[in-house]
C-alpha cells in the first residue's frame, strides 16, 4: 500500500527549513504522498529514510524513455485506471515489426514508407513512433537488419529476440541510443539484464504466468536495472482486458511494485490484419504503453492514431480549435457565412456537416473559451458582442460579397442584438443541430 503523508512526515527532519520549496515538512510530505514531488527535493533527509521512502516515492508506473537521433518517446507515469479520474498522460508508442529474415533492401523500403507516413488530424501530424526488429536467426542477420532499418528511419527501436548474444550484435549498431530490448524470461534474465545495463537499454520482461512475472521483475531490479516493461503474453481480447487490468490495478491501487511498469502489447501476433486492428484498439483503451503492429495500411493506421489521440486527451480541458474563419469546400464570395464556437467537437460536427453537404461555405469559429454553443451562451462567452468582434477581427467582410450571417438555432435569441452590433447585416437563424445543416444549406443556396 502507498505510504501516507503522516508516515512520510515522521521520517523527515521536521525542521521546516523550506529548502524543498514548501513551507513545512508536512506540506512536503503530503505532496510526496500524492507523488507530486521527488524526495530528492529535500536535501536534508537521512539515508535511512531515503531507503524507506524510495519505494513509495517512485511513480506507480515507471517512466520509460526511448531515444534516438532527434526522437524521444516517453511511456508510463500513469496514475489512474479510468481517464476521467484525471487523465492518461503518455500516449502508447506505435512500433511496426520488421523481421531480420527479410531482404535488407526490402526492409529499408518498408521502413521508409512507414516512417514518412504522416496524417493530419485536428491540425496535428500523426506518425509512427518507431520500429521493432525481430531476430529469427544469427547475430549477423540482426545487425544487418538493424542497419537496413537505420537506412530508412531515425526513430527509436525495439529489438526482439531471446538470445542475448544475438541481440548484442544488433545493439552494437545502436550506440548512444536508448533502445528497448525484448524479452527477458525466467531462463535468460541474468544475461539479458547484463546486456540491457551495458547498453543503457530498457528491458521487456515476461513469464509463463503473472505469478512468475511478479517474482522476476524484482530480481532484475535488484541486479541494477530499473527500466522494465511488462509483457503479460496477451494473445486475445479476453486476456487483454483481464491481464492488463490486473497489472494496472495492482500497480495503482495496491502500489504493488513488481508490476509498476508500462505494458507492451503485440497485436501483430494475431496474424490477421483486421484482428490486429481490433486488438490494437483494445490495447489503446486498456493500458498498453507500447503497441507492436505488422500490417501497415494508411486507412487503418489512421484510425488507430486518432483513437490514441482521443483516449489520451485530457478530459479536464475542453479541447479547442483556433478561432478564425474556416473555408469549406472552396467557397466563393457569395457563399454563406455560418458561426459556431471553438469547442472542438462543436467545430468538428459543424465543419463535418458542411463538408459532407458538398456546399461551399465560410465557418466563423468564435472564441467562446472552448465551450459548446449552449454552454458558452449560458456562460456569457458567446454573445452578440463576441460574434461581432470576431466578424471584424477575422476580416469576414473582406472575404464575402454579401452581408449575411447564419446563427446556430440554439442562440436564435441573439439575432436582435447582433443586428445592432453589425448594422446593415442580415442575421439568419440556422438549425439547432449540425446534422440538419446540409438540408438547411440546400434550402438557402
Amino acid at each position, binding site marked *: 500500500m502507498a505510504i501516507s503523508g503522516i508516515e512520510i512526515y515522521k521520517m523527515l527532519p521536521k525542521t521546516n527549513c523550506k529548502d524543498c520549496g514548501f513551507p513545512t515538512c508536512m506540506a512536503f510530505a503530503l505532496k510526496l504522498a500524492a507523488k507530486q514531488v521527488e524526495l530528492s527535493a529535500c536535501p536534508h533527509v537521512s539515508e535511512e529514510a531515503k531507503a524507506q521512502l524510495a519505494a513509495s516515492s517512485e511513480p506507480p508506473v515507471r517512466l520509460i524513455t526511448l531515444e534516438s537521433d532527434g526522437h524521444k518517446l516517453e511511456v508510463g507515469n500513469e496514475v489512474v485506471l479510468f481517464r476521467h479520474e484525471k487523465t492518461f498522460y503518455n500516449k502508447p508508442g506505435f512500433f511496426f515489426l520488421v523481421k531480420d529474415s527479410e531482404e535488407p533492401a526490402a526492409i529499408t523500403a518498408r521502413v521508409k514508407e512507414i516512417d514518412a507516413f504522416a496524417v493530419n488530424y485536428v491540425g496535428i501530424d500523426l506518425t509512427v513512433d518507431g520500429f521493432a526488429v525481430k531476430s529469427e536467426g544469427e547475430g549477423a542477420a540482426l545487425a544487418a537488419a538493424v542497419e537496413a532499418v537505420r537506412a530508412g528511419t531515425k526513430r527509436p527501436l525495439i529489438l526482439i529476440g531471446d538470445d542475448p548474444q544475438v541481440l548484442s550484435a544488433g545493439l552494437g549498431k545502436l550506440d548512444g541510443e536508448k533502445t528497448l530490448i525484448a524479452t527477458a524470461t525466467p531462463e535468460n534474465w541474468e544475461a539479458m539484464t547484463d546486456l540491457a545495463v551495458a547498453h543503457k537499454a530498457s528491458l521487456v520482461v515476461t513469464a509463463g504466468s503473472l505469478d512468475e512475472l511478479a517474482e522476476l521483475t524484482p530480481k532484475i531490479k535488484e541486479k541494477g536495472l530499473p527500466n522494465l516493461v511488462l509483457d503479460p503474453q496477451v494473445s486475445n481480447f479476453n486476456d487483454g482486458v*483481464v491481464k492488463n487490468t490486473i497489472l494496472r490495478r495492482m500497480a495503482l491501487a495496491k502500489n504493488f511494485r513488481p508490476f509498476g511498469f508500462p505494458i507492451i502489447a503485440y497485436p501483430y501476433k494475431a496474424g490477421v490484419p483486421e484482428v490486429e486492428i481490433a486488438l490494437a484498439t483494445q490495447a489503446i483503451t486498456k493500458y498498453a504503453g507500447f503497441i507492436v503492429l505488422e500490417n501497415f495500411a494508411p486507412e487503418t493506421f489512421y484510425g488507430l492514431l486518432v483513437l490514441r489521440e482521443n483516449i489520451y486527451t485530457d478530459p479536464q480541458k475542453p479541447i479547442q480549435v483556433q478561432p478564425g474563419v474556416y473555408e469549406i469546400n472552396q467557397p466563393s464570395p457569395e457563399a454563406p457565412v455560418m458561426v459556431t464556437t471553438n469547442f472542438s467537437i462543436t467545430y468538428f460536427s459543424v465543419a463535418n456537416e458542411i463538408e459532407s453537404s458538398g456546399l461551399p461555405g465560410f465557418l466563423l469559429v468564435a472564441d467562446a473559451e472552448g465551450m459548446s454553443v449552449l454552454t458558452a451562451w449560458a456562460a456569457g462567452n458567446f454573445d452578440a458582442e463576441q460574434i461581432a468582434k470576431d466578424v471584424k477581427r477575422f476580416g469576414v467582410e473582406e472575404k464575402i460579397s454579401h452581408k449575411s450571417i447564419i446563427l446556430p438555432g440554439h442562440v436564435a435569441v441573439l439575432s436582435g442584438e447582433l443586428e445592432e452590433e453589425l448594422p446593415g447585416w442580415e442575421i439568419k437563424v440556422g438549425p439547432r443541430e449540425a446534422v440538419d445543416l446540409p438540408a438547411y444549406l440546400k434550402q438557402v443556396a
Partner: protein
Amino acid sequence: MALELPKDKWSGSVQEVVIGATAADGGTRTAAVTVGGETTMPFVHFEAETPNRPVLALEIKDFRPNDWSTLLLDVWGEATNDPGAWAKAAEEAGADLLLLSLSLTDPEGNPNTPEAAVKAAKAVLEGSGLPLMVYGPGQAEVDNELLVPVANACQGERIVLGICEDKNYRTLVATAMANGHLVVGRAPMDVNLSKQLNILIKDAGLPLDRVLMDPTTGALGYGIEYGFSVMERLRLAALRGDAMTQSPMSVNVGFETWKTKESKVGDDVPETWGDWEERAISWETITAITLIEAGADIVILRHPESLKRVRAAIDNLITAPELS
C-alpha cells in the same frame, strides 16, 4: 507465491432487460435477446462472469435513404428498397436485433405517414424473426405521430421505442406501457442528465426492466472519448448501486461513424487516408470495440463487415481466459 487478484467489491449491478417476445410470451420473434446484468467493469472475468454478451444491431430504413454513404447502399443493394428484404438480409448478416429507423420523408420528399410507418414495421417483423427497435426521425411531433401507431401495431412484440429525450418522453413511455414495449432514453453525454432522464421515465410509470439508455457518443475522431468516459462513469455508478444508472447502454455507432467524412466519402480526401472502404469499416469497428470496452450492451452498426469483425471480438471477450 500466488498473487492475490485485485478484485473490486461492488454492491450494484446493471439491470437485466429482455428485448423481443417469442410466441410463448405473446409475440412472434424467433428468440428474445437479453442484455445487461453485469456485476463488474467490462469483462473483468476474475471478479465474475459476464452474464450476457454485448449484442449487435443492424440499422435498416423504411425507405432507401438518400443521405447514406454509397458504400452502404451498394453493400445492401436492392434490399434497401424493401424493409422486409433488408431485415432478412440483416438477419443473414448475423445481427442479434434490428433497428428500423423511420424517415422524415419518403423518397419523393413527402412527409412520412403513420400508415407507411406501420407497413414498414410489419414488413420487418415478417422479413425477420429478430427482436426489433424502432426509432422515429428525431423530431418530437413526428416521432410521436409515427411511433404510437407502430407501437399499437406491434403490440406484444416487446420492441424498443426511441428515442426518449428530456423534452419528449411522455408519449413514448405511455404507448410502451400500453403495448408491452420498451423505450430507450438518450441524454447528451452527461452522467447526471442520463440519471435525470431515467428518473423521469420511471416516474412516468415504466418499470426499469423496460428501459435502455443511450448515453450518446461521438465517433472516432469526433468525440469518442466523451462517450467512452461517460459510459465508464455510468457503469461505475451502476456498480456502486445507483439504480438510476443501471440501465443497459445502447450506442448508435453506425449513425455516428457513417456521417464522418472519413466514412461517408471516398473522393476529395487526403491521400494519407488510404483506401475508402477499409477505412470506413475500420472507423465503425474501432468505434464499436472502444465503446464495448467501456461497457456498451447494445451496439448499432450499419455495415455487415463491421458486424462480423466486432462479433469476433465479442465472442472472445465474453469467455473467461485461462490465467495460468
